């Protein structure tokens, strides 16, 4: 007789599902602040660095 249990295949999706909120937050922050941050870094480099 075999006792059927949940085979646990869906568990592989768990890390992705758990990371989704963090990835969404990162994407939102990158879209919202990314261009401004890149511009700021560019200005700082140009101001503080000698050729």
């Amino acid at each position, binding site marked *: *007789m*075999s*006792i*059927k*249990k*949940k*085979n*646990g*295949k869906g*568990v*592989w999706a*768990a*890390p*992705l599902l*758990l*990371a989704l*909120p*963090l*990835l969404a937050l*990162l994407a939102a922050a*990158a879209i919202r602040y*990314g261009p401004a*941050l*890149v511009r700021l*870094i*560019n200005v700082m*480099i*140009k*101001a*503080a*660095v*000698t*050729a």
Partner: protein
Amino acid sequence: MKKVVAWVLAFLLAIALALFCLTFVFRQAVLPGTVGKGAKANSQVVSAEQELIRERVTELAGLYGFTPGPVIDAVSGEALDELNAKAALWWNTVLTEGKAGTRPKLDIGMLREVLLSDPLVAKNEDSEALAETAADAVNESVVRVVLPVRQEIVSYGMRKAGQKIDLIDMMDFLIRVPWAALALALLLAGLIALMESRRLSGCLKYIGSAMGAAALTVVAVAVLAALAGVRPMIQVASRSLAIQYDGIRTGMVLRTAGLAAVLAAGCVLCLTFHRRSAEPNES
């Protein structure tokens, strides 16, 4: 309800692990500059600097009229190592005291001697003045390769930033964050283990998922950082800074990849163990 709490703890564990990895990579990049007399220059960086110095001294030789060979020999090897050590000390002062340190310089007297012994310089009417001017120009050019920053701007920026925040305390805090994040991660993993104390496989499901989520987050942050395109900006602004940045970036990429791989391996191990124990049993 218990499952919801366990997943919330796993989510927090993922954040703590990702925070540990990212701050650890930052710490390892910054730490050498805060300890003792600063970081020792990487040999690859030094040889790339030597190549750049060779180009610049050759250009200056054309401009001032001296033989580049002896000057290049004089500023390579030990002199460059010593100059890199002084530049590291300059960064050390910036990172630990929040102000620009003493600008490094070559032994100008030695450079002048080398230039005066050059027949091209010696045959000039005012060889002393030419040697003096050329030595200063070579010194300025070489120092710019090793420390390609405008000190006045950096000092002003540090002073202004220092009025708003305590930079030294902040740096001290940032260096300690990885260990705090790791301690928090261990605490959260312990809580999950306590909650699932009856079933080891259940506990591994949450911890493994958190490790996988942290690995994905770390990789995502690394990809975003790569997409920001800081390297081309630095390359345009200063070739010598690009050389130094490459040395730091290689270490950061390797550490990030290593930590993400460890987390991913932990995730696969935990979830495989969990799945095996959840597979149908035959009796």
